């Protein structure tokens, strides 16, 4: 009874005031995720699931479409966007990212339509970053201008490699020349707002060939580079090739060396590493991605998309981890029927939320600053959580971790070993937070 009344009230009052309108006076820490500064806004991710073919290393949610579903897919993306915006009750979308699949297989009007749907409902500033993932084929390149007209103002180009042989063996459908041309065109249209994705640790790659490739890349790229170590995922063609011995990956020592050299080289060229795999010059960071790492809300639209937000629209008070249905055909049916195709919803408890904030935030070179942490954990600061632990002391001593008046972050060396450090931090976090989190949400 109390719960329903309070929930009804919450739709009218801003979340914070709920504490004083009756009921228990327990301090509901999990509701910091429901503080207005967090729940008023979100970034939007839209997934276009179709590709012409599947690259050998890819395990994303992508499909080779048999017939042209574009029209119905667009309508459904619009519908789901509308529904989820309403559900989240955000008043503003801070950035939009069109990912996939191969988004640049879709007609530019599709993105225009989706952006329009967003603007109709919430505030989408003209300055807001709208990124489109681009596969650098000639067909893709020719549409770039139209995408700009449709509202896209940033491009993320999946170059992956500048060696034609490698592109072939990875199953890519473009060559390096086409990639370079696409980069050029993109830079012309959106100067300073073009990102290039490259993979290292590819089969047959050496440290030397990587250095050469990097310098070639640095001659032509814009102000943002994403460097990803190629990872073997189960179920991919590449995985099978490695398993049966047809293909060998470079050794761990080699890939570790490639990473360190790349970091140094990019630094020398004026790039600032701001995240494990992301480097930017002249501060042209990806605002959308930073949003993830800072624990902000995001809405995921489209088959297999992920979201993190408080469904205020149905009286929710706790942030949820949401996943949309993976299979496009099934997703389409669900959207048509229910207005959205949400397959999974999981409430995030106070500890779980903080865990995500920690794990994501530590990926950034600036780490987690005290103010940022306070937004999610108003009662227990970073010093209190991590200051006392022996393990953390050791990491601080050995120079992998830094805890100072700015906040908590990895050192240059520590960042490369982040996943060895995080479990220890998670143990400490649980130790400090868990007893308090036993006072769950309403």
């Amino acid at each position, binding site marked *: 009874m109390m719960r329903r009344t309070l929930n009804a009230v919450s739709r009218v009052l801003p979340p914070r005031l709920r504490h004083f309108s009756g009921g228990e006076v327990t301090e509901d820490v999990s509701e910091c995720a429901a503080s207005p500064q967090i729940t008023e806004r979100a970034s939007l991710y839209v997934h276009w699931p179709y590709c012409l073919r599947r690259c050998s290393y890819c395990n994303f949610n992508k499909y080779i479409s048999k017939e042209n579903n574009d029209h119905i897919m667009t309508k459904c993306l619009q519908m789901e966007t509308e529904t989820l915006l309403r559900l989240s009750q955000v008043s503003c979308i801070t950035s939009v990212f069109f990912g996939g699949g191969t988004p640049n297989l879709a007609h530019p009007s599709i993105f225009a339509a989706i952006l329009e749907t967003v603007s109709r409902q919430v505030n989408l500033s003209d300055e807001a970053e709208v990124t489109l993932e681009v596969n650098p084929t000639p067909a893709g390149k020719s549409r770039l201008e139209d995408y700009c007209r449709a509202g896209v103002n940033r491009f993320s180009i999946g170059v992956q490699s500048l060696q034609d042989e490698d592109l072939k063996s990875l199953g890519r459908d473009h060559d390096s020349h086409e990639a370079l041309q696409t980069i050029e065109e993109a830079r012309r249209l959106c100067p300073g707002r073009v990102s290039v994705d490259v993979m290292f640790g590819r089969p047959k790659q050496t440290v030397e060939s990587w250095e050469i490739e990097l310098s070639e890349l640095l001659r032509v790229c814009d102000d943002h580079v994403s460097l990803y170590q190629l990872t073997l995922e189960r179920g991919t063609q590449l995985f099978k090739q490695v398993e049966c011995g047809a293909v060998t990956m470079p050794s761990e020592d080699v890939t570790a060396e490639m990473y360190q050299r790349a970091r140094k080289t990019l630094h020398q060229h004026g790039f600032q590493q701001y995240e494990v795999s992301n480097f930017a010059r002249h501060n042209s960071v990806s605002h959308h991605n930073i949003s993830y*790492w800072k624990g902000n809300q995001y809405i995921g639209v489209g088959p297999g998309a992920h979201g993190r937000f408080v469904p205020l629209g149905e009286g929710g008070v706790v942030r949820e981890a949401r996943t949309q249905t993976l299979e496009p055909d099934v997703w389409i049916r669900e959207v048509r029927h229910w207005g959205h195709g949400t397959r999974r919803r999981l409430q995030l408890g106070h500890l779980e939320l903080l865990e995500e904030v920690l794990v994501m935030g530590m990926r950034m070179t600036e780490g987690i600053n005290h103010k940022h942490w306070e937004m999610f954990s108003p009662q227990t600061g970073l010093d209190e959580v991590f200051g006392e632990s022996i393990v953390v002391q050791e990491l601080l001593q050995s120079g992998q971790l830094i805890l100072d008046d700015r906040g908590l972050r990895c050192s240059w060396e520590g960042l*490369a070993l982040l996943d060895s450090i995080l479990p220890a931090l998670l143990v400490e976090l649980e130790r400090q937070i868990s007893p308090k989190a036993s006072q769950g949400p309403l």
Partner: protein
Amino acid sequence: MSKFPVDRIRNFCIIAHIDHGKSTLADRLLEMTGAIAKTEKNKQVLDKLQVERERGITVKAQTASLFYNHEGQRYLLNLIDTPGHVDFSYEVSRSISACQGVLLIVDANQGIQAQTVANFYLAFEAQLTIIPVINKIDLKNADPERVESQIEKVFDIPREECIRISAKLGTNVDKVLQAVVNRIPPPIASTEDPFKALVFDSNFDHYRGVVANIAVFGGRVKKGDKIVSAHLGKAYEVNELGLLRPDEHPTQKLFAGQVGYIIAGMKDVKEAQIGDTLYLHEQPVEALPGFKPAKAMVFAGMYPMDQSEYTGLRSAIERLTLNDSSVAVQRDSSLALGAGWRLGFLGLLHMEVFNQRLEQEYNASVIVTAPTVPYKAVLSSAKLIKNRRAVQKNMVYIDDQRVMMKYLFPLNEIVVDFYDLLKSLSSGYASFDYENAGYQAADLIKMDILLNGRPVEELTTVVHRERAYSTGKAMCERLKDSIPRQMFEIAIQAAIGSKVIARETIKAYRKNVLAKCYGGDITRKMKLLKKQAEGKKKMRRIGNVEVPKDAFISVLKRKEK
């Protein structure tokens, strides 16, 4: 039942090498005499344990009483199905003692095998009538003639006595029943004699207490009688008794010559000792010759996964051994794994079956280690005498086919895999027995395991000098495989005093960070990180090295075959 004259009773068991078809024949006999309905599903009805069904083997011998009409007369046939595996030959010898004849089954293609011979000797030495039965004649490669020649040559049994059957199809099984009636003598027993029965097996039932399988050698017994166990001298009152058909069929009385079960308020299987004699309180009799208890051949240490599960495991072991008195149980403890037991089994299969039953029937999860062997240390090194690992004492030829060899072994050498290797090297034909020869001086040393220079107490072992290198190296290798990489190099060493005799290195991580972590990736990554965080909580810190419990287990546990 009382009207059943002794001369129309036949007690027999089925013996054979493993998989030659004992249990199938038992099924057919039960079907044919109406003890069970004839259906497809009567596959090995007598194998009751889940582990028996899964492995297709008989572990515990089961008994059934059958009624059979032959030439106008009604006969009571008592059948005992026995295990075929070498580990369980003890069960076979117990069953034989209650019978007057055996059906010795031989596979028509495989012919005489190790257990065929072993079981034959058991029956022969007990002077039982042996009916050779050649089974699986329906199969393509069957060669009954050859097998009949074998039987004639090896066992000296005329080939005319062989009965060729297919237990699966039922071919000629009726001839087997006829042979049982005609060739196996009735038990020599009189209902007029004082009551005397042999306990040849026992089970523990939680609600009713000990259920003893008995063969009545004389007299009669009924509900309410006061009986005495010759072994313990204790008296009991008979609560219930009856036949096994194969399920329990309670009756009022049991008579001489019959085989059945009896429940008399015994609380512990040790009160119904195998080989014990039961008699009426008012009429004591001379005890029947008993048995030697089975000797453990294969040993293992058993520990609970976590000390919090100790009491659960203890009660599971207690309950299982209630029904298996051939398992030798002794408490033991290990620095790394806590309190546990040292158990002795008849063989490796016996141990595996025991483990499987622990897991299936009692839901216990167990760490199985190579057991420890007690040493006495003499600190003055002047007294140590160099010793060879095994010293031959004696060799005797029994006949032109068998030789007996006597060796003096350090217990450590036989405690783990010796018996099993011996059996497999000799295709099961070799048999093995041992007795304690006391403590002997030996060249033993203490070996430490170090991680980045710090000794790991739990892994310190005493080894013979000759074994030190190989043991040390093996331990280092196992540790290398089970300690996760850390942000610095880990040096694993085996040392005697200050001398390092084996070494392995675990490289440090140079890069360990997920390449991509955007909106959707976080869920999967969190799962993995949280799992690692949980694991970290359970690790032991040796200096700055974090060691999971699994590492200790992998070093201490029994090697997989």
